[in-house]
């Protein structure tokens, strides 16, 4: 009889399966019938908790609301909606968050390069230019402008570059000015990284300390995996 909605009892509660081949109107109709039936079958004072499985269908907020409006009352509640699919937009977001964004360009004076997550920049940041990322920033090339890692407040982010020029590094709300006087400009060419230490002070450290100071860098576990 029921071909749009199936009710199953599980350990976790009642599972309400909405078949993705059925139309949404049909589903609503059947949920209404089901509700009336359940009301009659269950004794008062007994609470029922549902979780809704939508299969290969992604419900919009208003559709979820419609279902909640029918089911939820004093005795019935919905704990969650579960779907086997996600929108392409969300998928892209997850995809982007799980790997550093690669940019090959020159960031010139007055330009701002914004990135969600980590940023790998191959190119130069000119004086007056800004690169910003919510995660860490890695620069292959010359950093002469501003690099702002952990832009949204993440203080565990780092900035990695060869600090050979006057520049400015910001991590979260901390600011560090890299000052190179003419005397020590050729002092070292090695790559260094800037991070915020336990005392909430920005410090510049040599590359070989990276694994000890920030062991989580490089283990990208953002998103699904």
């Amino acid at each position, binding site marked *: 009889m029921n071909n749009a909605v199936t009710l199953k009892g599980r350990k976790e509660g009642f599972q309400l399966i909405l078949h993705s081949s059925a139309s949404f109107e049909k589903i609503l109709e059947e949920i209404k019938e089901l509700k009336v039936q359940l009301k009659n079958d269950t004794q008062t004072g007994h609470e029922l908790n549902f979780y809704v499985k939508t299969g290969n269908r992604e419900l919009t907020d208003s559709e979820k609301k419609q279902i909640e409006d029918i089911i939820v009352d004093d005795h019935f509640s919905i704990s969650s909606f579960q779907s086997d699919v996600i929108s392409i937009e969300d998928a892209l977001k997850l995809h982007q968050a799980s790997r550093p964004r690669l940019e090959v360009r020159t960031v010139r004076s007055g330009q701002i390069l914004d990135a969600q997550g980590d940023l790998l920049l191959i190119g130069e940041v000119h*004086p007056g230019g*800004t690169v910003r990322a919510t995660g860490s920033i890695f620069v292959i090339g010359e950093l002469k402008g501003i690099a702002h890692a952990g832009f949204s407040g993440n203080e565990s982010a780092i900035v990695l570059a060869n600090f050979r020029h006057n520049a400015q590094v910001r991590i979260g709300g901390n600011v560090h000015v890299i*000052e190179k006087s*003419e005397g020590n400009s050729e002092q070292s060419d090695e790559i260094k990284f800037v991070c915020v230490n336990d005392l909430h002070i920005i410090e510049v450290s040599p590359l070989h300390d990276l694994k000890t100071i920030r062991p989580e860098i490089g283990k990208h576990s953002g998103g699904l995996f």
Partner: protein
Amino acid sequence: MGKAIVVTSGKGGVGKTTSTANIGTALALQSKKVCLVDMDIGLRNLDVILGLENRIIYDIIDVVEGRAKLHQAIIKDKRFNDQLFLLPAAQHADKNAINEEQMIELIGELKKDYDYVLIDCPAGIEQGFKNSIAAADDAILVTTPEISAIRDADRIIGLIEQTSIQAPKLIINRIRKSMMQNGDVMDIDEITRHLSVELLGIVFEDDEVVRSSNKGNPVVLDPSHIASQGYRNIARRLLGDTVPLMTLKEEKRSFWKKLFGKKN
């Protein structure tokens, strides 16, 4: 209560920013507390000439839009103990990001704390210029002995006369002695008479200006250079001293001097 002075020219490239940096530095050397305000929003340079570019954290637009307090945006020049300060312009905004009322409020705030507030005006007569002159008490007009710069300076004087600012004081910048002596360009008297404003000072063309600006040091720090002396004199005149104008004459050594005189 300090004084707000706008440094303007109309034409670009005549040395507004260089003059602002050097006059400000010279005033600081005379133990005045000076704040330089870069109004060239979108094409800022004053910070570069002062060698403070990488110290900028907040700028004037951050202050106007409430992202930072005024004192957070002001950068102290460490070379002068608590004498010279810079309020930098924003680089990723344009001149319309701020208006005249906001400028008046901002400069009014600065005048409480500083003896001199020098406003570096952008080239042109658009919003950036209007903002720069809105809050100024006095104006310094920079020109070069080129007819195009003088023409623009004339236009600026006309615009400033329509405001409550006193008649601007003139700086003739980048004078090449030989050209002026040969009559290839208008001479100092002619320019001053033509523009009919008070002459504040003259600055001779000096390669050292570019050389030292490139290193982030205003030329005025080293008194041995001819441009440095010009700017130092201008600062002293601003403070009320009477300083004679520098002489245009190229030192011509007479035959006898060449023969018997000491080498320089």
